[in-house]
């Protein structure tokens, strides 16, 4: 009898090309996603060494991080130039490198363009059981469909381009089991914020987290991608959710997904990947879904999570002295005092987007709150940035764009946008933003910007009231 294995171990074992005496393995990479920010130096390295891309057919390039989210073509249909010279140079480098090396390239004006982690699953390029890498830490996202996906640095991008492999140490395994049913208005985002608060920003270091339990199983693929996206916020190398019928239904007939007999063979294989009964994880954390409220961050680490009904904590309340110092620094940066109710905190900016929350369900959740309402006057800037051109088209077909525009929000073109402020979309210094992105780090949304991470419905609620708000109050 073979040893009972976890989902992670099954995917790992199927990709070992070679094992070194010290346990390091050469792992085959099935899918490589490339964007404009972390790839120019890798292509330059290949050129300098006279190397080719080993498997252009397993590689897909799409620009996302610094494409502007304003109109990309003028009324006559001509491409508009990108004003920021450095952004333009990175975009031009990708537009040249991809065809030079024979790689599939989705250009910034294509309908399929979008954030690389939205595009991969949407195109059926990302598949369960596959190893997927990208020069971006939120590659963990693709774990939502059961792929072993992780972010890599530019040297590794070059290594994968040249050899289609990576040298890796096996990770430890961690199970985060969320059992039961969540309350009203508690979304996948609230679940992952809550988990990050419980395990801490370093809680998953060295581990691959598999999310299990009935609350995870009952999520849509959009929700599962949101969860796995933020595995990295808990310090993990990757997140995983076992593929099931929901996954198969989502992927069927996507452009790059297998077709016909191949599809049936693929599904049969994917079904064999679930963690075996009796397999053990190095660590298990169990969370009761009923304990999760609509959540919000107060500090500058994603672990700084409280329910929206909560208060800004006193740094002295943390047991760990280094956390006390970090919390005090966070509060200073965030301009918050301990004991303030989160629901009393005013916001001037709203960002609904990013690879965490820019899929069609996220658009629907925000629109449901904004329908027939207007943004508050103190909210100066509120943008909705769909994750891809296809999400945008779908939202427009459902009339969601009108709801956003009528409520006083801007409806933008797809890209990373204010998630990391590499394009012109930035939050001004000293101002607050209710943001559906994944990082509340110092300066992440622009120098001096203060980020509060929330779900799309919570961001919409904050837009309406001009304060961080318990979305349940707007749902009566």
């Amino acid at each position, binding site marked *: 009898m073979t040893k009972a294995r976890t989902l992670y171990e099954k995917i790992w074992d199927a990709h070992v*090309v070679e094992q070194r005496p010290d346990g*390091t393995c*050469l792992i*085959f990479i*099935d899918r490589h996603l490339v964007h404009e920010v*972390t790839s*120019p*130096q890798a292509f*330059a390295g290949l050129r300098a*060494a006279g*190397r080719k891309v080993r498997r252009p*057919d*397993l590689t897909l390039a799409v620009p996302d*991080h610094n494409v502007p989210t304003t109109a990309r073509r003028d009324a006559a249909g001509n491409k508009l130039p990108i004003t920021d010279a*450095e*952004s333009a*140079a*990175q975009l031009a480098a990708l537009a040249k490198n991809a065809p030079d090396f024979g790689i599939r390239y989705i250009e910034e004006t294509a309908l399929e363009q979008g954030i690389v982690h939205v595009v991969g699953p949407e195109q059926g390029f990302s598949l369960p059981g*596959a190893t997927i890498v990208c*020069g*971006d*830490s939120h590659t963990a996202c693709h774990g939502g469909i059961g792929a072993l996906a992780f*972010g*890599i*640095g*530019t*040297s*590794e991008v070059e*290594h994968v381009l*040249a*050899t*289609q*492999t990576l*040298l890796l140490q096996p*990770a430890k395994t961690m199970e985060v089991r969320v059992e039961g049913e969540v309350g009203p208005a508690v979304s996948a985002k609230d679940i992952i914020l809550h988990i990050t608060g419980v395990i801490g*920003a*370093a809680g998953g*270091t*060295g581990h691959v987290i598999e999310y299990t339990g009935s609350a995870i199983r009952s999520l849509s693929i959009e929700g599962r991608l949101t969860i796995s996206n933020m595995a990295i916020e808990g*310090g993990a190398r990757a997140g995983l959710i076992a593929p099931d019928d929901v996954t198969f239904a989502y992927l069927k007939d996507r*452009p*790059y997904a*297998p077709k016909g007999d*191949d*599809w049936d*063979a*693929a599904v049969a*294989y994917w079904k064999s990947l679930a963690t075996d009964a009796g397999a053990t994880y190095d660590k298990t954390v169990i969370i009761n879904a009923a304990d999760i409220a609509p959540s919000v961050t107060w500090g500058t*680490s994603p672990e700084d999570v409280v329910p929206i009904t909560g208060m800004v904590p006193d740094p002295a309340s943390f047991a760990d002295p*280094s*956390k006390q110092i*970090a919390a005090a620094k966070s509060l200073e940066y965030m301009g918050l005092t301990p004991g303030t109710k989160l629901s009393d905190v005013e916001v001037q900016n709203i960002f609904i987007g990013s690879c965490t929350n820019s899929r069609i369900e996220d658009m629907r959740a925000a629109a449901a709150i904004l329908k027939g309402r207007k943004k508050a006057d103190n909210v100066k800037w509120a943008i909705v940035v769909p994750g891809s051109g296809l999400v945008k088209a779908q939202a427009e077909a459902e009339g969601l764009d009108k709801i956003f525009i009528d409520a006083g929000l801007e409806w933008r073109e797809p890209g990373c946008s204010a998630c*990391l*402020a*590499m394009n012109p979309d930035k939050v001004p210094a000293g101002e607050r933003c209710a943001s559906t992105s994944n*990082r509340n*780090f*110092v*300066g992440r949304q622009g*120098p001096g910007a203060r980020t509060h991470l929330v779900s799309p419905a919570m961001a919409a609620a904050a837009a309406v009231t001009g304060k961080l708000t318990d979305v349940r109050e707007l749902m009566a």
Partner: protein
Amino acid sequence: MNPLNQVEGRAIPLGLKNCDTDVIIPAHWLKTVSREGLGKGAFETLRTDPDNLFDSAEFQGSPILIGGDNFGCGSSREHAAWAIGDLGIRVVIAPSYSDIFSGNAVKNGILPLVLPQEAVDRLMEVAQTDPISVDLEAQTVTTPFQDRFRFEIDPFRKMCLLGGLDEISITEQSDAAIAAHEEKISSNQPWMIPAAQ
């Protein structure tokens, strides 16, 4: 890549826990298509403070940086390793690192040295006034005060750092094994290869 073995000099006592890569190099510095010159943007937000460690005369050209738990967490940007390297730092000492950062560091000839918190605390103290010595071959960190800490390192990483080796050329020696794996996929799981569009 420059080989690395013995490094001696002043160590910047940063200490900061959860020092993320946005702190190491803010996103707006990522708009480059080259690896050089990022030292100017390294720790930019901390350096707005006129009394910061990085710009003090005392720590100019320090080859060692002491960090806190979970050093290099957050974004996978390799620019963080390039920026630290461009400052002239060859060794970072911390109780733990994000996996991505420590991998990136090694690939750029920087040693992400792990020591327990107590040892790091002691080195933080020494670094205020005196130099620190790191010996990769011997896997030790020593101070002028008889402190001697042994550290562990993965043998493969050690070999790459000591020899200044390029990982791609090492992997290329496994070409036959990679080709065999590719062959197995095309015959057993042909659906794994996306159709040409």
